[in-house]
């Protein structure tokens, strides 16, 4: 493929999915600055390995690259945090990455004051373990089909369905617990 043709094809097939890529990266990294870094790195990889794309539907392929890039970065962070003797929290899988800038308040008191439901739902989704969070985000926010999610996360379709089921159950429990806490004012 000549460079000219490659660029034309890349622009037509891959660049339109920039928003989808950024959205997935934000929800997996839970940090916008890192999400940007992930998207740039993912596009670099996608461009380098563009010949590996089969067919014209680049979205699942690109999102698969984004997902892998996120997990590589998170794993690298986890390892460097594990070396840090002061960082107790990093042993908790769902601890927010060090230096993460939160785009919304996680403090339930603040969440109560304004748009309580919105903050609650976002906080609960962010707190979901990554394997469930990724399928829920891909399904509900990126609007992917089960087949696409299976391709992106490299799991069978049956697993997509069971992870969605478990993820939604966890969300439901977390939401109803927090709503109750809110109602009783504790």
């Amino acid at each position, binding site marked *: 493929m000549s460079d000219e043709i490659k*660029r*034309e094809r*890349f*622009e037509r097939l*891959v*660049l339109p999915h*920039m*928003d989808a*890529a*950024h*959205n997935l*990266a*934000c*929800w997996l990294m839970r940090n*916008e600055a890192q*999400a*940007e870094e992930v*998207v*740039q790195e993912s*596009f670099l990889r996608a*461009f380098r390995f563009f010949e590996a794309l089969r067919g014209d539907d680049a979205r699942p392929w690109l999102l698969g690259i984004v997902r892998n890039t996120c997990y590589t970065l998170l794993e690298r962070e986890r390892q460097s945090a594990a070396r840090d003797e002061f960082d107790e929290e990093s042993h908790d899988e769902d601890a927010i990455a060090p230096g993460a800038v939160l785009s919304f308040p996680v403090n339930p008191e603040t969440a109560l004051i304004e*748009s309580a*439901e*919105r903050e*609650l*739902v*976002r906080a609960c*989704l962010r707190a979901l373990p990554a394997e469930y969070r990724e399928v*829920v*985000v891909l*399904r*509900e*926010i*990126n609007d992917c*089909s*089960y087949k696409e999610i299976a391709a992106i996360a490299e799991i069978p379709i049956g697993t997509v*369905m069971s992870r*969605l*089921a478990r993820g*939604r159950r966890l*969300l*439901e429990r977390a*939401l109803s617990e927090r709503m109750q806490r809110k109602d009783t004012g504790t």
Partner: protein
Amino acid sequence: MNCRDAVRLLNGYVDAELDAAGALAVEDHLQACARCRAHHASLRAVQTAVRRNAEFHSAPAALRERLQARYGHGGARGAAKLRSWFVAAPGLAALLLALWLGFGNIADRPNDPAQMRAKVVFQISQSGSASTALRNLANHLEASPDATVVVVAHNDGVDFLLSGARDESGQLFEPAVMKLKSRGVDFRVCGNTLTRRRIDTARIIPAATLVPSGVAEISRLQTREGYAYLRL
């Protein structure tokens, strides 16, 4: 179908991923079983809560420009930049519309009444954007009472036109819709969306009308009737 099978298939049902036979079998079971009905209702509630509240993070304009410059082909750069502005700044889109509506009345030829009126079709495809959209619409009509405005709702955007639908603060949408309708705003609902999401047409509030396809309606208004198109 027993409860175990139903529970196993319920997520696929909620996501419209089952084939027709599977979906019908689940529906039959739901008719008969109150426990699975409750389970189904809570699944739907979680789904609605996430879709309504969890935001889609569009790429920031600066990142978009960087990627476009590095991997783009050149020609479409200007268009992408414009698009990114609309994505990044819905307020700007509203402002441009207000300006356009305002100037439209002055700039158009005064002898042709059809030309004097600005015609705009708004697309609403996400349930979370409905209240902002209605607020913007009301403001625009304030500024330009002569504008002909059509709202086409599809995908999750149809939610606010179902009877009993409420906004984030718990207010019913219907009175606001009826008020806009009385000022000439036409609300149209995508029939394909209702079929796909298995929503009974009886649930659509009387102020809205049904069209076969939302997307086809938008392109018809744009190409045949000269409407400007805005996505909210």
